[in-house]
């Protein structure tokens, strides 16, 4: 395999794993965050604190947990996801979901109370109000998705443990940097680093443009 195609493959797996994790984390985190923010219930503060605590959840610990779950002796071993991109997606989704959820809670709790009253006074039911509130907090929610992607694309510990850094299969940019650095191939490591930075920059630039044009 030529080095160009190897780089392309690594970039492809990185974007696929981080993108899928962000998508799944958003699909879980946004509705959960909306629910926590808009539905008062006993223990709501505890759930919020828990979500915020998971911001700092060590990726290697998430990786270890998912490794144990997916290993042959683990409860999900039958899936055969260990050392596959699917297992990496699972680990990263665990890391992304609390971030998206926590930031969604913060964004939605800052939506003015007056807006709820206004929506109800104009004939909204509770479900319609929740949709309206997500729409109203859309800039904050979009930021939550951006931060979630940032976490996923730059994460190394969990994907290394769960993916195993297998060439052409589960190697992503961050694990490639770790490997090349360990082998003293600093130029290659730097190239991967620059590509990683460029991908992140491109993603955030696109989302920022969408935020400005569509959301504001």
């Amino acid at each position, binding site marked *: 395999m030529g080095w160009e195609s190897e780089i392309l493959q690594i970039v492809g797996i990185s974007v696929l794993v981080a993108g899928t994790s962000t998508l799944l984390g958003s699909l879980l985190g946004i509705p959960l965050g909306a629910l926590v923010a808009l539905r008062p219930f006993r223990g709501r503060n505890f759930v919020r604190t828990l979500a915020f605590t998971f911001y700092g959840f060590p990726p290697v610990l998430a990786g270890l947990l998912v490794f144990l779950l997916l290993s042959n002796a683990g409860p999900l071993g039958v899936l055969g996801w260990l050392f596959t991109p699917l297992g990496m997606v699972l680990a990263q989704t665990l890391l992304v979901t609390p971030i998206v959820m926590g930031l969604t809670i913060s964004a939605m709790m800052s939506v*003015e109370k*007056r*807006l709820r*009253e*206004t*929506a*109800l*006074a*104009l*004939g*909204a*039911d509770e479900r*319609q109000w929740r949709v*309206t509130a997500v*729409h*109203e907090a859309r800039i904050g929610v979009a930021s939550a998705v951006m931060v979630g992607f940032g976490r996923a694309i730059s994460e190394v510990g969990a994907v290394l443990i769960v993916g195993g850094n297998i060439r052409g299969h589960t190697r992503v940019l961050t694990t490639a940097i770790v490997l090349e650095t360990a082998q003293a191939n600093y130029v290659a490591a730097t190239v991967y680093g620059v590509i990683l930075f460029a991908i992140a920059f491109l993603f955030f630039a696109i989302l920022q443009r969408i935020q400005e044009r569509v959301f504001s």
Partner: protein
Amino acid sequence: MTAPLSFADLHKSYGGKEILRGVGADLAAGEILGIVGPSGVGKTTALRLLDLLDPPDRGIILFHGKAIAAGTPEALEQRRRMALIMQNPACFRASAFENVAFGLWLRGVPEEEIRGRVFAALDFVGLLESARERADLLSGGEQQRVAFARAAVLKPEVLLLDEFTANLDPANVRLLEEAILRHRRDTGCAIVVVTHNLFQAKRLADRVALLLDGRFVEVAPTPQFFEDPARPETRAFLSGEMAY
């Protein structure tokens, strides 16, 4: 024909404090009832009960003779035949067009119809040229006009207005008052106006009610209310002798 809105013996307490202690009145189609009174006597509370946002502790609210209680499935249906404009209304982070269209979207009105109705409503309040501008960034007076258009576009049977011109300059007050009178003339909807501005009550209302200590002390046709009130409390309130 039964009155579009009747209410009787409404009681409401918050945090152990009794705010309303038996409020009641009937409203005919096309009639404007002004509710006046000092601050903190429960005018806003009364409007929230009438809009079925909160349930009364006691009492009854009838729409065309049918009793409807807040929180029931019929309440949502009835709320969609009414509109409430609050003091300092909030505009959504969206264009003036989208703000005015909001209630129509909730009701599943077809898009082509929405366009026509929203542009007509914005034209009605003189904001047609601001249709694409962010409503929450407009001036206070313009936001209040968006709020009125947002309610009027729904063609409500009953329109509830809570201090809807508070803090506005005289030009915007006049514009909104004219819009309300035109709307009443065009649609025949019944309107309740809560205001602490006696001049406004005089200009708009067919009848005026004085709310004091959680009760309507006097409900009378506007000329009588201001020229020849029956109750000493009304005379004291109108002359500014009432200390609160």
